[in-house]
């Protein structure tokens, strides 16, 4: 019997039982829609995290002054001022390191004409902008000579610039930081939240020397709060970490057996953890959605088994007039698969619609890929074949004489 004829027979059987077909299909629709929706939410979260990581800069170390203890009393990381600007300069000389960005920071009041705004002042070096993967909306970074002379120049974060200047172009304007005049030389492009959820765009950057002498002050001159170190490449991160540790131990005269008075953290590793977490979330969401697909599949098997029992006599008649086992098997398998494929199609559309709704209502980033749709569709068909096979097999293995006699 040719396949088209069997497809026709299967379609006829499905059409004759519209309500049952529809209800069975509903299980498939919900399952596929859930898979598409969950995968797109998971993929969205992953993309969001990847964007945050990319905005952070690549191959980064964070070096902070170490935890120390004195007389049995432990202080937290950064509690003593062991890292200095010259440490940062020395680390920058290492061949596995491309640049460093030492940072001291404090809070200060900013003002421009009638507006004023309080935010974090970051004192750093021009390299910091490269290391931290900052881009300039307008203007440029301050220069090495600004750094040497302790010039009063400032680079504004996007949010700060907007709050203080509004629609005025800040470049070339003079603003005040704790009442000292500063020339605005650059405005940064907005980055959004960091991985830790901090707003990275509400801050101002000035030369570290200027900051130390005039704004934040410094209890221990030359010391820094932390530094960002950019490794030469992703492959040499471990090597760079070792070299930084060796160099700092040497410079800080830490004898063997003594603990480091600093901590080196590989931010790439932290980013990898975050990416991994997002991946796991995607998998968990997908798995939960797959359960509904499974339940839908069991529903199909259920209905097909009932259908085979109900139509035993019909199967017997078909066998008596010449249907072989394969023809019967194909017909029932096709019925199950058609439910799945039609349900899958509707489910994919519903899933895309749902994802769009979620992105509109919850303002979440939703990513739908063709691979995702393909996967959902593939699984729907696989479920159809898997759960449709047993009832179809059962129908095909009936003995003609028994099936004909069935009341």
């Amino acid at each position, binding site marked *: 019997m040719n396949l088209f004829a069997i497809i026709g027979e299967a379609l006829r059987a499905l059409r004759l039982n519209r309500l049952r077909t529809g209800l069975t299909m509903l299980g498939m629709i919900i399952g596929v829609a859930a898979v598409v929706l969950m995968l797109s939410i998971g993929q969205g979260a992953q993309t969001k995290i990847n964007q945050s990581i990319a905005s952070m800069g690549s191959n980064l170390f964070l070096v902070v002054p170490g935890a120390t203890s004195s007389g049995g009393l432990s202080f937290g990381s950064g509690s003593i001022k062991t890292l200095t600007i010259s440490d940062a300069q020395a680390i920058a000389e290492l061949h596995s390191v491309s640049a460093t960005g030492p940072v001291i920071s404090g809070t200060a009041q900013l003002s421009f004409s009638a507006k004023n705004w309080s935010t974090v002042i970051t004192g750093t070096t021009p390299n910091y902008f490269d290391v931290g993967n900052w881009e300039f909306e307008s203007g440029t970074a301050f220069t090495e000579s600004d750094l040497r002379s302790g010039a009063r120049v400032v680079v504004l974060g996007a949010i700060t610039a907007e709050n203080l200047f509004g629609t005025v172009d800040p470049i070339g304007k003079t603003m005040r930081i704790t009442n000292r005049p500063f020339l605005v030389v650059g405005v940064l492009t907005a980055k959004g939240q960091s991985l830790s959820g901090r707003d990275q765009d509400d801050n101002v950057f000035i030369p570290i020397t200027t900051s130390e002498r005039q704004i934040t002050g410094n209890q221990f001159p030359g010391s820094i709060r932390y530094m960002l170190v950019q490794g030469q490449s992703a492959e040499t991160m471990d090597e760079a970490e070792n070299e930084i540790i060796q160099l700092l131990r040497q410079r800080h005269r830490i004898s063997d057996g003594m603990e480091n008075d600093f901590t080196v953290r590989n931010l790439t590793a932290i980013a990898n953890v975050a990416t991994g977490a997002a991946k796991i979330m995607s998998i968990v969401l997908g798995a939960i959605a797959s359960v509904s697909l499974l339940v839908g599949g069991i529903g199909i098997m259920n209905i097909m088994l009932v259908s085979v029992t109900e139509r035993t006599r019909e199967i017997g008649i078909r066998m008596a007039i010449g*249907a072989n*086992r394969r023809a019967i098997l194909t017909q029932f398998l096709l019925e199950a698969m058609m439910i799945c494929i039609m349900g899958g199609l509707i489910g994919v559309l519903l899933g895309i619609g749902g994802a769009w709704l979620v992105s509109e209502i919850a303002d979440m980033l939703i990513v739908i890929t063709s691979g995702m749709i393909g996967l959902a569709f593939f699984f729907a068909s696989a479920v159809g074949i898997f759960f449709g096979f047993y009832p179809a097999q059962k129908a095909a293995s009936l003995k*003609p004489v028994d099936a004909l006699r069935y009341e």
Partner: protein
Amino acid sequence: MYAPQQNNVTQTLIKLDKLCKSYHLDDANGKTMSTQVLFDVALNIQQGEFVAIMGHSGSGKSTLMNILGCLDTPTSGSYWLAERNVAALSNDELAYIRNRHIGFVFQGFNLLKRMTALDNVATPLLYAGINRSNSRQRALEQLQRTGLEKFAMHHPNQLSGGQQQRVAISRALINQPSLLLADEPTGNLDSQTSREIMTLFEQLNQQQGLTIVLVTHEEDIAAYAKRLIRLKDGVVVYDENHNVMNKPSPTQ
């Protein structure tokens, strides 16, 4: 139409030898009960014969019919259909034989309820691999021959019993079988319609040389056949040719 048997030399179409059939049933205690239904049945049927098999219920006539129709397989013994040993064939080969060589007519008509008369008649052609439009065309021609073309698009429940049985006969004949098997074909029909159906069988046998095997428990129906076989408790107890023996005239 099915090919008329042109050779005058009669050929053996059906040859049964020491055919036995027993059923195995598991009773409530898990013991297997064995019931033998047919005992060493030996039978030859020539091409072009019109045979009636008679017997009371439980005589094994339906079981014999199912085996003849390749719906069931014998427990032992051999069944040669057109010189092929059917007992040794696979399920798919049996399906092929049922499709091409055998036409069935049942007591309860056994039409597919959800299909039109036309599609019912066309279905065996679909299983023979013929496409839908050709199948429908041929089915329509077959219905015209039985005078049912007006009812082609009717569903079985819109037809009378006689009309349904004629649709079933059309379906049985569509693949030009060499053997027509009828299991109590008039059991659900009134006597007038029964006579019409039997006359149709008689015509098919006489005009086209179609081999017909009929199972019935009504003497007047059996009288249309040329040869009568009686079964009792699974054994052939009588096998005579009406033409040779004193043939009782068909009761009107």
